[in-house]
């Protein structure tokens, strides 16, 4: 059976006692109810956390961009303006819900929901720590890629349903971009699957260690290139600059969500910022060691879990910061440059990487570059004599 957060928590005595006493009280085996309650609480925690990350993401974006452009940024609501996202949220909820009369009402309703469902569907497999993963699905990587493709459909239907030229162009660009850039992302994560020999996040992360030289990004030269391909592809999949063509402000007003207002627009924005967190988490789990802590500090107990969550989240936020800085540094690509970059450069390089990683596995028996160097150095210095 797949390991879940429930099966992790059921190791502990208080939870076992709770199950037993509930079973005695109700007269039947209460394990289903307890696991349902645990799932409910954990999912509420994770959804709340991710929604806060999405909200604070907008704040961080505005603050960092202000810093880079020598402005002040939001500074009125709360200390340093940190409660700005709550004020924005309240504003969006209270705004009039405008639906264009010529739009396709059904698609207009469905599109933001598809986006938000696609993003929140991924939280089931995000590996926060070895115990605190909602579901350690044994095909978790494929599930994450599959469920997050709902976002592309949401973007496209949002553009199509609003019946406006700008939205339509943005939606078409978004869908084609998301479909195209899924290929290099999948190819470069496949090379990691080859190295670790599993599709579940516990297998992918368990094959790495806590120190940077044990991470897959420094495993061999090809995974080093593969990390950047995955990162570029993730940027394009989340419609972030320099690939923000679907919502290019200077050409398309606001792209696929031009006609959306109030909380429907809020859903699109929230989905974008949470998806950035999710893809950064994916890059962390695949290449940067995931939740591994150096020297296995804290063991498997509660302290260890907290340290693991800290390790995962801090690496992910570092990547999040890089994503934001990239947006305010690079200019936007043209559509033809976008497609050329994906199909003529990223996909061939990713394919070459995949083959070379397989070759590396065959030649060096899956040992990392660091191990090989260390071995040869120790042999040269007379180890084993």
């Amino acid at each position, binding site marked *: 059976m797949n390991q879940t957060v429930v099966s992790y928590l059921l190791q502990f005595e208080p939870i076992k006692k709770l199950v037993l006493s509930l079973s005695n009280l109700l007269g039947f085996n209460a394990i289903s109810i307890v696991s349902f309650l645990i799932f409910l609480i954990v999912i509420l925690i994770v959804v709340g956390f991710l929604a806060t990350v999405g909200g604070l993401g907008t704040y961080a974006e505005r603050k960092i961009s202000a810093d880079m452009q020598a402005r002040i940024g939001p500074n009125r609501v709360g200390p340093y303006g940190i409660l700005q996202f709550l004020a924005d949220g309240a504003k969006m909820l209270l705004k009039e819900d405008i639906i264009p009369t010529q739009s396709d009402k*059904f698609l207009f309703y469905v599109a933001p929901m598809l986006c938000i469902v696609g993003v929140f569907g991924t939280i089931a497999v995000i590996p926060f720590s070895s115990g605190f993963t909602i579901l350690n699905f044994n*095909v978790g990587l494929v*599930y994450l890629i*599959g*469920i997050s*493709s709902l976002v592309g459909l949401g973007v496209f*239907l949002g553009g199509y349903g609003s019946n406006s030229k700008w939205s339509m162009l943005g939606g078409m660009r978004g869908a084609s971009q998301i*479909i195209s850039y899924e290929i290099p992302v999948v190819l470069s994560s496949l090379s990691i699957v080859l190295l670790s020999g599993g599709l579940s996040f516990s297998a992918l992360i368990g094959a790495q260690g806590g120190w940077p030289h044990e991470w897959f990004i420094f495993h061999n030269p090809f995974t080093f290139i593969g990390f950047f391909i995955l990162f570029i592809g993730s940027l394009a999949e989340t419609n972030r600059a320099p690939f923000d063509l679907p919502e290019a402000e200077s050409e398309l007003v606001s792209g696929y969500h031009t006609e959306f207002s109030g909380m429907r627009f809020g859903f699109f924005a929230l989905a974008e910022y949470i998806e950035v967190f999710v893809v950064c988490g994916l890059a962390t789990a695949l290449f940067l060691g995931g939740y591994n802590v150096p020297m296995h500090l804290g063991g498997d107990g509660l302290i260890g879990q907290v340290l693991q969550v800290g390790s995962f989240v801090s690496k992910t936020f570092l990547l999040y910061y890089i994503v934001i800085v990239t947006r305010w540094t690079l200019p936007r690509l043209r559509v033809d440059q976008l497609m050329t970059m994906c199909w003529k450069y990223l996909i061939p390089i990713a394919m070459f990487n995949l083959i070379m990683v397989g070759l590396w596995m065959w030649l060096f028996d899956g040992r990392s570059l660091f191990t090989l160097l260390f071995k040869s150095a120790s042999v040269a210095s007379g180890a084993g004599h």
Partner: protein
Amino acid sequence: MFDTILFIFAALAAIVGGILTISVKNLMHACVFLLLTLLGVAGLYLTLGADFVGVIQLVVYVGGVVVLMVFAVMLTSGSNAQKVNRFGMVKIPTMGNFRTYTLAGIFAALILMSIIKLYRNVFSMARLEKLPEYYPTVSKIGHSLVSTHVLAFEISSVLLLGALVGAAIISRPKREMR
């Protein structure tokens, strides 16, 4: 109990989505309901313990086929402004004549026969009291793809190559006629 509830939800999604897919007139809406059906089918696979098939259902159908369908509907609608409105095929005058009904009848009979043939084995089988224990299917599928079913695997890759070449030939810019 938990499994049964999830199974019922998935089955409801599949059935309701299927009925709505064939009953709505707007082609784009039908695509969205088809998405619901496919998600329901993926859920059915997952509750029955076929994890890999369920997830591949998500990747292939949700990520690929439905998006392609929506694209195709959008790009082809509006080309024939007299008969078709901007969402597809609402304005088609009559939905059938003698020929189409005959063809549909033949195909319905064929599908019915094959379904009966499939289900005869199912009903004649002894009922399982308990489902076999859950077992991850990825490695099994992988091993059988490169050992027992390697020929089918290779042939399907040749088919995909043919589709790729065909698409390249169709989309190539036409030369000037001489």
